């Protein structure tokens, strides 16, 4: 029986060999076609940023620059040095760093603690508490924008990096809790129970038992939060302007600012600078990035 199945299978495979070769070519053709669609904007951004305005006007989107010219990168990063009205990304890049680091730290820490309690120190109604927090992942932020603007004003931290740290920490908690909760749920509770019998307390169990095995989920959470906060525009543009703005807001202002001549090369260099930190993280730790994406969305 097993043998005859095997041979039927072999026969079928033989028969479809030629169709297969054709199909393979077709397959690769479509896959590469789409790959070029996805690569195209990145390619255009890079070559445009390396051209002079003269070259941009004469060539097309695809023409290769005549020389590697990093002038527009320098202008995008450090400005032209004529003082007033000279916007460039450097200070805003640092704003974003100052905003991202504490916000990622606090939201990850709070989420780790919440996930720990929700799975290892269960109490009556903990499922509802989880649902209560989870809902925060899905709200459209427009529904909290107005009271948030008021609150930041009352606290005296509107238009400041500290204000943005608060906003991003708070609205990151639902996601970080989700990540840690789903990770800790899969770790046997017996471990914790045994430690409790041995007299280990709440924090000792967390730091000695759970934290050492949490590296993967910490990486997923940190990457997720970093990408979200770095790329945020809504909060940045609503709660800050001028000098406290994060990089995405500054990029948008630079591109929209109506100078007499539009410098596309500088625009593209700026866009790449604003996108490079998250791109690097994606290339280096893509696996964890995708895990965050799928579990942040699907919930594990």
């Amino acid at each position, binding site marked *: 029986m097993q043998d005859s199945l095997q041979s039927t299978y072999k026969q079928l495979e033989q028969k479809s060999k030629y169709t297969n070769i054709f199909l393979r070519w077709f397959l690769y053709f479509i896959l590469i076609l789409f*790959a070029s669609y*996805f690569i195209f904007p990145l390619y255009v951004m890079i070559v445009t940023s390396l051209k002079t305005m003269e070259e941009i006007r004469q060539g*097309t*989107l695809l023409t290769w620059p005549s020389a590697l010219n990093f002038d527009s990168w320098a202008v995008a990063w450090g400005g032209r040095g004529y003082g007033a009205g000279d916007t460039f990304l450097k200070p805003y890049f640092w704003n974003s760093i100052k905003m991202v680091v504490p916000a990622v730290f606090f939201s990850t820490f709070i989420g780790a603690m919440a996930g720990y309690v929700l799975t290892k120190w269960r109490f009556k109604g903990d499922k509802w508490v989880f649902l209560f927090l989870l809902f925060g992942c899905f709200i459209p932020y*427009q529904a909290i924008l107005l*009271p948030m603007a008021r609150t930041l004003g009352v606290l005296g931290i509107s238009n400041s990096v500290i204000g943005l740290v608060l906003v991003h920490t708070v609205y990151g908690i639902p996601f970080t809790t989700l990540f840690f909760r789903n990770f800790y749920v899969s770790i046997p509770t017996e471990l914790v129970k045994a430690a409790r019998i041995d007299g280990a307390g709440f924090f000792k169990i967390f730091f000695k038992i759970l934290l050492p095995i949490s590296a993967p989920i910490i990486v997923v959470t940190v990457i997720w939060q970093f990408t979200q906060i770095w790329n945020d525009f809504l909060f940045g543009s609503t709660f800050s302007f001028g000098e406290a703005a994060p990089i995405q807001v500054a990029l948008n202002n630079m591109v929209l600012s109506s100078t007499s001549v539009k410098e596309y090369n500088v625009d593209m260099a700026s866009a790449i600078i604003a996108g490079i930190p998250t791109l690097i993280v994606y290339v280096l730790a893509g696996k964890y*990035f995708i895990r965050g994406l799928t579990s942040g969305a699907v919930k594990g």
Partner: protein
Amino acid sequence: MLKWLEKNLPKIVMAPAVGLIGWFVYGFILWTLYISFTNSKILPKYELWGFGQYSKLWASRKWLISVDNLLIFTALFLIFCIVIGILLAIFLDQKIRAEGLLRTIYLYPMALSFIVTGTAWKWILNPTLGIQKLVVDWGFENFTFDWLVNREMAIYTIVIAGVWQSAGFVMALFLAGLRSVEDEIIKAAKIDGASLFTVYWKILLPMMRPVFFTSFVILVHISIKSYDLIVALTQGGPGISTTMPALYMTQTAFHKSQVGLSAASAMMMFMAVAAVIIPYLYSELRRENAR
């Protein structure tokens, strides 16, 4: 005292998260709801005014255009993302060479902000120096491509950029789904003489129903919240032809200083999202309880 502290320590540790979310999510939504029933202009007023803002909202031409645009965008965004996502997932599932590289290429736009994406596509779609010039240079001299500045067509440029950003995500979801199906099922079907096409169309795709559902929910959610991409690509223009609810909400609040009206529009968005999310959370919870 110490005993009590020890017993309640988990709850105390839990308190900041619950407190912050309670205040900043639920409290704030209730505040917005309340304000939407008042006649607040620049500053919030707390005197109730009934449904006035809602009737004003639904009589506003700009809001109606926003809702129209949202429906067009959502429909096209969903169709293209899901079709391209499934296609790429199935093709990548055929033991492809350099699969890792291709996957990286399909998904990298997700790592970029919508502002970066919008800036890039704005340059590419630029009617003088962008794609139009490229195609004219290839010899098609009468080719015009001015969607970005064309009232009728500008909304589709947002679809192009949005699909570019999010299709890879749907691909990742479906690829993970396809990979979790046991090989035996596919083998058995092949022995029964089913073609590869039939295997996918009749067996695998129907098994992917939860993935369809998830993609649907996430994409609708992304599209209702679309804001950054429009700001970077068209700023709602030309005129108001590409306005969407999220843009309407912030403009009404922060440029027109119509806080009450803006709160009403925010609540409409909230209800739209809730209508999609609550059934989703409910079904997810049931699935989890069933396990």
